[in-house]
């Protein structure tokens, strides 16, 4: 299948977290993610996006891309003061994602389908 992508732009408000999680889960479901993988994806998106929201005050942009292999989520806030993850969050992300990185202005993460990863 061709890549599908979705870009969400929203203010720094924790109430949007659920929208981001639902969007990522819905798109991942379409490429064959099972319940456990959806759970992991949602958990990871929640951790990273929360950290991004806490680092910024202005507008946040999250982009979700799915393909045959899995899901890539990136989040950016231009006024971010640096995304910080505590030890527990890092531990969760190590287990729940196949790859994640945080930068001064955002994050990116990859979650592969179970039969691919």
């Amino acid at each position: 299948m061709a890549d599908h992508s979705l870009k969400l732009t929203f203010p720094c408000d924790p109430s949007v977290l659920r929208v981001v999680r639902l969007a990522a889960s819905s798109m991942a479901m379409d490429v064959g993610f099972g319940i456990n993988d959806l759970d992991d994806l949602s958990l990871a998106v929640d951790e990273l996006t929360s950290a991004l929201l806490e680092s910024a005050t202005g507008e946040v942009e999250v982009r979700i891309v799915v393909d045959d292999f899995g899901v890539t989520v990136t989040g950016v806030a231009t006024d971010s003061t640096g995304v910080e993850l505590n030890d527990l969050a890092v531990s969760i992300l190590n287990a729940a994602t196949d790859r994640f990185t945080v930068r001064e202005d955002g994050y990116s993460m990859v979650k592969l389908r179970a039969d691919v990863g």
Partner: protein
Amino acid sequence: MPTLGDVLEHHDDPKVQKAFERYAVSKDRSLRNQLVEVNLGLAYHLTQRYEGKGVESADLRQVAVVGLVKAVERFDHTRGVTFATFARPFIVGEMRHHFRDLGWELHVPRPTKERAQRVRRSVETLRSELGREPQVEDVAHDTGLTVDEVVDALDASRVTRTKRFEAGGSTGAPPEYMQPSSPDGGYLDVERRELLDGLLATLDERERHIVVARFVDEKSQQEIADEVGVSQVHVSRLLRKTLAQLQEQLRSTMRSPGSDPDPA
């Protein structure tokens, strides 16, 4: 309580590694239970940071073991991570689920809660029936919900943010999940408070005392047990039974003529 050193000591044990390899192939239940048993120290170790936050140690340990079982069932020894690293989020996540569930009645709309419970039950059933992790479509077919409703329900029962969970840690205040919703910000508006008061009035004196002590006065189950003169386990059972009773009454109330929110 085991130290982290004690916990991690046996993880390089070739016998344990072999057992994980055998379990990956056989999915033998008794072997799974042995693996759970040998890793109990890890689960108990992880409960330490969450003690003193309103949940009894015994309850917390039980919940941690549930997370441990999930981790053993899902561990893939070929991925190159240790079991301790893999299992930690499952165990911690399960404890956070537990804290969230305690505040569930106050924070989540009834229909969403019911759907989430149906979905969770369906996932468990399908997991054993199908012998694999169910897909969202499987759950939708089994429950009669749409796939969007299933995704929504899964999200509703999902772990939320680490820092919110840990908020009580530094201040001594209870976690956010256990705090009542603000009158203007949560679901518990004035009308619902009146409804809740009416429901509480239907309980006998001891049941009402336990519910109020737990969810209004935020006392621990052990404190309540000491007051009432029963075991903490008994208080836990009474709370579960009473909450189920309240839920059923609430459901009946919502179904009664003139109050049905969905007349169709």
